[in-house]
């Protein structure tokens, strides 16, 4: 699958799983449908993290406006879409540092960062040490890929949320991933 197809596939999918069920009350059903669409957008970020995503493009996967997307994503998943994506990128970089011999610079661009400075700064903030030091201290983890994807994505404490300098999601101009 070409990288640019990764999101396109998702955008073309119709909202499934919500056939007419008479007894389910309207408000509850609306919540479930929105959750499902937000989950679909979150999946798109997990799949296309290496692409230059912007928030409008990912919001389109969920069929909601950009502002509504950020607000509801945070309410449903407990963090903003931007933060979710950055933690996914850092998790993937940790994976590549553990599992491959690729240079830190190559890995930075592999996972979707566009600036080595941003990557190094964010990695250090989240992981607590520079990428090169992390690599020396960690080898491959013997666990299925899906377990690593689920369990290894770093999360910050509440006090650390909101560093504007961490942004490389909203500022990405390209929509080539679409």
């Amino acid at each position, binding site marked *: 699958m070409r990288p640019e197809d990764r999101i396109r596939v998702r955008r073309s*999918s119709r909202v*499934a799983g919500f*056939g007419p069920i008479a007894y389910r009350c309207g408000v509850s059903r609306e919540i479930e449908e929105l*959750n499902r669409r937000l989950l679909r957008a979150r999946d798109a970020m*997990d799949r296309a993290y290496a692409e230059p995503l912007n928030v409008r493009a990912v919001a389109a996967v969920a069929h909601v406006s950009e502002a509504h997307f950020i607000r509801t994503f945070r309410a449903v998943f407990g963090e903003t879409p931007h933060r979710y994506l950055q933690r996914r990128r850092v998790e993937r970089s940790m994976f590549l540092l553990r599992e491959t011999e690729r240079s830190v610079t190559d890995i930075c661009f592999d996972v979707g960062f566009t600036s080595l400075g941003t990557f190094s700064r964010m990695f250090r903030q989240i992981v607590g040490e520079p990428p090169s030091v992390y690599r020396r201290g960690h080898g491959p983890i013997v666990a*299925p890929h899906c377990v690593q994807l689920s369990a290894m994505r770093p999360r910050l404490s509440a006090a650390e949320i909101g560093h504007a300098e961490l942004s490389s999601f909203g500022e990405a101009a390209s929509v080539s991933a679409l």
Partner: protein
Amino acid sequence: MITSLNVASIYVLDKEEALDFYVNKLGLEKGNDVRQGDYRWLTIRVPGQPGTEVSLEQPGSPLHDEATAAQLRELISKGALGGLVFITDDAHALYETLKARGVTDFTQEPTEHFYGTDMGVRDPFGNPIRILQQGKAAQKATA
């Protein structure tokens, strides 16, 4: 001693739609389908392997009060409940088959790992499904 896993359950939002997905899209077969009053005991299983079944449970009466059911439905639809892991003999071929059947909600296309090739997909409600081809991968690497 326990000798095998017989039945595990997953929650779905609609049993009929779940049956369509798991049988007609994913390629499993229907196991038990027994109605007792309001309750429908509905299971799916891997064809040819009747020893292990997955029970499709729908939140709500008679299992849950409406408030509990609403909470469960929210968790299902945000992908927060547990899923299933299946084994395939050819992940790449299955991926193409699923796409041809109209499946779009892939969380991961077939990817090679030291333990084999795996892929990810969600059922119509948000439940995660992993499908693994065991053994050292020989296929082309995917990005």
